[in-house]
């Protein structure tokens, strides 16, 4: 059981799902009939990456709650690693989002609600690292980081909603692909990619967490030996 969820195992599963998802997306799912055309294929990894980023922040939220309840620093390490990976995926979302924008709207950036939300989320979680860097005392840093991770995660859906309050008509809203019903083959390809990307995140979090815990252990042992 333990072997099945170890980081290498997760990585292999992720690889399998991603490759199958890729094959299905490019060769099985039909080319989108609307103006999106072939570039709609980007949807099969753009959306999973976005979802995975939010899963990362969700894990950080859960870890923050656990830390505040137990004051056990291992949860702080998990939160830290999850935010880092969530942010990495959020940056990738911006990257794929911009490519999408260029290929379907002809511009690299549009103030479209979802892109705007992710831009703000990037700023939000960048602040998490700034906060960590200015608190020296470890327990205090963990506590503040946890409080902020809780606040930030709650702010994400609020931000997503708020960007829809920006008056329309200023910028064209083109992004409707996800809203219309998907064909079965599209949906299956999409789900498989999504599972693969989430498993990849799980593998990366496991490794990252392990690294942080091992680093702590090294520090402890060194201080025993040094003192």
């Amino acid at each position, binding site marked *: 059981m333990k072997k099945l969820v170890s980081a290498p195992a997760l990585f292999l599963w992720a690889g399998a799902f991603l490759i199958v998802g890729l094959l299905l997306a490019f060769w099985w799912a039909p080319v989108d009939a609307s103006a999106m055309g072939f570039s709609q294929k980007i949807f099969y990894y753009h959306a999973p990456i976005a979802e995975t980023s939010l899963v990362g922040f969700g894990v950080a939220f859960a870890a923050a709650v656990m830390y505040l309840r137990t004051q056990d620093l291992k949860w702080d390490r998990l939160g830290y690693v999850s935010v880092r990976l969530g942010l990495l995926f959020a940056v990738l979302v911006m990257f794929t989002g911009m490519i999408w924008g260029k290929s379907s709207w002809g511009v690299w950036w549009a103030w479209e609600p979802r892109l705007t939300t992710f831009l703000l989320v990037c700023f939000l979680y960048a602040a998490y690292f700034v906060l960590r860097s200015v608190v020296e005392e470890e*327990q205090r840093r963990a506590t503040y980081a946890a409080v902020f991770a809780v606040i930030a995660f709650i702010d994400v859906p*609020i931000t997503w909603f708020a960007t829809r309050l920006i008056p329309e008509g200023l910028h064209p809203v083109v992004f409707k692909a996800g809203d219309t019903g998907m064909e079965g083959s599209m949906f299956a390809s999409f789900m498989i990619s999504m599972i693969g990307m989430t498993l990849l995140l799980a593998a990366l979090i496991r490794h990252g967490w392990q690294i942080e815990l091992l680093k702590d252990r090294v520090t402890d042992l060194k201080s025993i030996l040094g003192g």
Partner: protein
Amino acid sequence: MSGWGQIGAILRKDLIRELRTRDMLVSMALFALLAMVIFHWAFTVRGDTDLTYFTGGMLWVTFVFAMLLGLNRSFAQEKDEHCLDGLLLCPVDRVTIFLAKTVGNLVFLLIIQAVAVPVFVLFFVEGGFLEGLPAFLAVLLLADLGICALGTLLATISMNTRSRDLLLPILFLPLIVPLLVAATSATTLVLADGAGVREIGGRLLFMLGFDAVFLVVAWGTYDFAIGE
């Protein structure tokens, strides 16, 4: 003593202090008025530019930044003179401290707005303003409450860190954006398009929800923010 009495005591103490030194209010008010002049230069592209459509944005950008100045000060003394320890020694719920500080900051922000809003309207809004007043005040109060609640929570965290004043805007601004979007668009609708409470109802509701969410979050986390 009841929580209300303690809120009153903290509030009274902060008000006496502020009215005696006036260091927060003076700098906040001067900032708000200066921002107005700068916005005028920045946005007047031609002699006859109508800035009415920008007033909502200008107002809330100004108030958020003015509040950042105030928030940095509101915990400075508690920290510098170790009064925070004295406060934490008292038999007081940490949430009571949060509520008292939030109300205190709200009072200061309202004082600043009482000065700045009329001047803003005089300078930038063309046409009537009074018929939109109820809607405008609703936006003002809901936005102020959210700014002060979230601001107080984050100022409590940032005062205990190495870089204090520098950290607060970085934490505060991305979190406050949703409220800022709602407040700005609602204010613009009221001032420029003559919308009433009914037309901006959705935005008011959104702001109310924002305030409620962050009051609850602060309720749950303030112990951690202020302690140890």
